[in-house]
């Protein structure tokens, strides 16, 4: 009896401390998320302020608190410069006690920040960078590559378009690492699917606005499909000029990395018929529609644009992160990452699993841009050609060969 009373007293004394102990597990009493994105350069429309908004929405929807402590969001513009990204990341980790850096959007900035985060045992959630190696030879223990990568784009568009009948290809490629690796990946896929690659033209980037010479070469090749292994402004100008020179609709354009904001900027009259692979489209189903309308109508969304897959993916990634923090009761990176990988993702964005290498494997979609007649309301741009299941959409863990994954 006395023993019982002792134990009970001890427990009563310890109970409030237990609460405090759990609270101490959230470092510095706050969960801080840093959105490091491109606000002023080539990627500002597909990520940028929209990414910050997506994260803020995720935090607000989560209730603004996790494990009893507040969540704070800070943001900065890395201007697409690896120096600024690296310095900001270091400062955020060392001085501002940021627990996770998200978005990053370009491969050069992601490549600079990931090692810094790993060294300091903080988490990076990538939504936007494309380099497949980020979950392969460059993988880190604290990184999640969430939304899409080069392999998914190459396989989605390459394989599925060949299956649709587009079996001869010519590439217009941006002459830098991203473009060349995308061309190489897609070439392999096209050949494996039974297609043929008739040639390619590499154009300087960025800064080149005239694609007529390269398009002429594509036209001369007679290929059924012109694969655009480029992105952003390059793709937009290529599509525009392909129409100008009468190349479409005789030949079909396949955009290897295209976002809905670019289709919007081009207009359907110019972009119709374009094939592209994305992870998300606002009009897929009721859940996506509901969330996207909230995003579009949010008072902080100045341009009233629909979310891109980068922005939607970021919302989902941050929500998944916060749920992991809640489940393990701490923001300790090892525990949180383990929980994120152990829990499947199930929301409007995806039904997916984050693998041991950090790659989030989920369904992707091959879309085709509608004609102006087929479009019934604003932003009604895509029709779904094929849903690509996660197992086919992303490379397997074995293919990725991340050194940290035990065999």
């Amino acid at each position, binding site marked *: 009896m006395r023993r019982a009373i002792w134990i009970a007293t001890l427990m009563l004394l310890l109970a409030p401390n237990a609460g405090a102990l759990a609270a101490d597990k959230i470092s510095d009493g706050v969960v801080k998320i840093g959105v490091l994105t491109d606000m002023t350069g080539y990627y500002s429309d597909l990520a940028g302020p929209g990414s910050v908004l997506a994260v803020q929405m995720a935090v607000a929807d989560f209730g603004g608190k996790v494990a009893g402590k507040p969540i704070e969001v800070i943001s900065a513009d890395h201007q697409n410069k690896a120096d600024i990204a690296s310095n900001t990341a270091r400062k955020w980790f060392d001085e501002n006690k940021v627990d996770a850096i998200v978005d990053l959007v370009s491969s050069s900035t992601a490549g600079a920040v990931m090692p810094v985060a790993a060294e300091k045992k903080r988490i990076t959630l990538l939504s936007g960078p494309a380099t497949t190696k980020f979950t392969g030879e460059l993988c880190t223990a604290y990184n999640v590559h969430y939304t899409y990568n080069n392999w998914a784009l190459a396989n989605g568009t390459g394989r599925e378009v060949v299956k649709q009948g587009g079996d001869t290809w010519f590439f217009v490629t941006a002459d830098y690492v991203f473009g060349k690796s995308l061309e190489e990946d897609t070439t392999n896929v096209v050949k494996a699917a039974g297609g043929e690659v008739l040639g390619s033209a590499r154009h300087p980037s960025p800064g080149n*606005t005239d694609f007529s*010479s390269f398009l002429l070469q594509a036209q001369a090749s007679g290929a059924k499909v012109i694969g655009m292994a480029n992105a952003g402004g390059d793709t937009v100008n290529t599509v*525009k000029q392909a129409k100008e020179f009468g190349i479409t609709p005789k030949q079909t354009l396949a955009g290897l990395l295209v976002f809905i904001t670019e289709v919007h900027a081009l207009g359907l009259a*110019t972009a119709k018929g374009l094939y592209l692979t994305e992870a998300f489209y606002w009009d897929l189903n009721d859940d996506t529609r509901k969330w996207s309308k909230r995003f579009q109508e949010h008072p902080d969304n100045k341009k009233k644009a629909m979310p891109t897959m980068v922005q939607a993916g970021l919302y989902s990634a941050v929500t998944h992160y916060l749920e992991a923090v809640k489940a393990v009761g701490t923001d300790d990176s090892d525990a949180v990452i383990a929980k994120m990988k152990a829990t499947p993702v199930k929301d409007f964005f995806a039904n997916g699993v984050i693998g041991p290498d950090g790659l989030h494997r989920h369904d992707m979609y091959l879309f085709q841009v509608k004609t102006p007649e087929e479009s019934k309301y604003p932003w009604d741009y895509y029709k779904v050609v094929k849903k690509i299941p996660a197992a086919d959409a992303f490379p397997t863990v074995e293919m990725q060969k991340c050194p940290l994954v035990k065999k």
Partner: protein
Amino acid sequence: MQALFGQLLIGLINGSFYALLSLGLAIIFGLLNIVNFAHGALYMVGAFLAWIALDSLGIGYWPAMILVPLAVGLLGVAIERTMLRRLYPLDNLYGLLLTFGLTLILEGAFHHKYGNSGNSYPVPEALQGGFNLGFMYLPGYRGWVVVVSLLVCLASWWVVERTKLGSYLRAGTENPRLLQAFGVNVPLMFTLTYGFGVALAGFAGVMAAPIYQVTPLMGSHLVIVVFAVVVIGGMGSIVGSIVTGMGLGLVEGLTKYLYPPASSTVVFAVMALVLLVRPAGLFGRER
């Protein structure tokens, strides 16, 4: 062989565009000794004004061809009056720095308002469609661009080299004091020169809008290429910039056919070579 002809024709088309852009720059440098770094940004402003005119005011391509250059020219006059004229007595380094700063301001401001995916400007109806030339399909609008660019270049050349106003401008470069002593309003002439030079950039912007996506950064790489053209041609020479512009277009076209990745850089290699052999450019005179 057919492919080569197609590339060369495209090269000529682009060349006429370069000629139009470098003309304004050459005039400004030749007559004012100002290195106008803002030329690319003002070209972008021209394209955006054309788009805004269509989108918000319903003003189409044809009136825009006159109104937009006027608007850009007025902007140029304002810049010259308030800022540039203070820099004339100084080394032209300062003019370059000031106009570089203006470029950043303009690009940043337009980016803030319009993002960077840009806007699409339609080809005017009368110029849609094209001609099948056998070795390639030539869009009608591109043919129009060549014709107009050459006309404008020739007209500008004629004004500067063959009219009284032009002779005043040329005199003003050589000896502004003496000219002023003759009773000519030299400061006004300088203002008008800058305004005219940037109006040409704005005009090029309107020409470009139907072909290239109208984005805030559309002029940023173009400006250093145009600089190289002007330097190769000779910084004060109008004939030089026209000929070099066309020539560069051809060289670029050839490079895009033979070794495309170098096509953006070939102009600089050519420039360095030319300057070493002919110090003042192909048609210029050493000042």
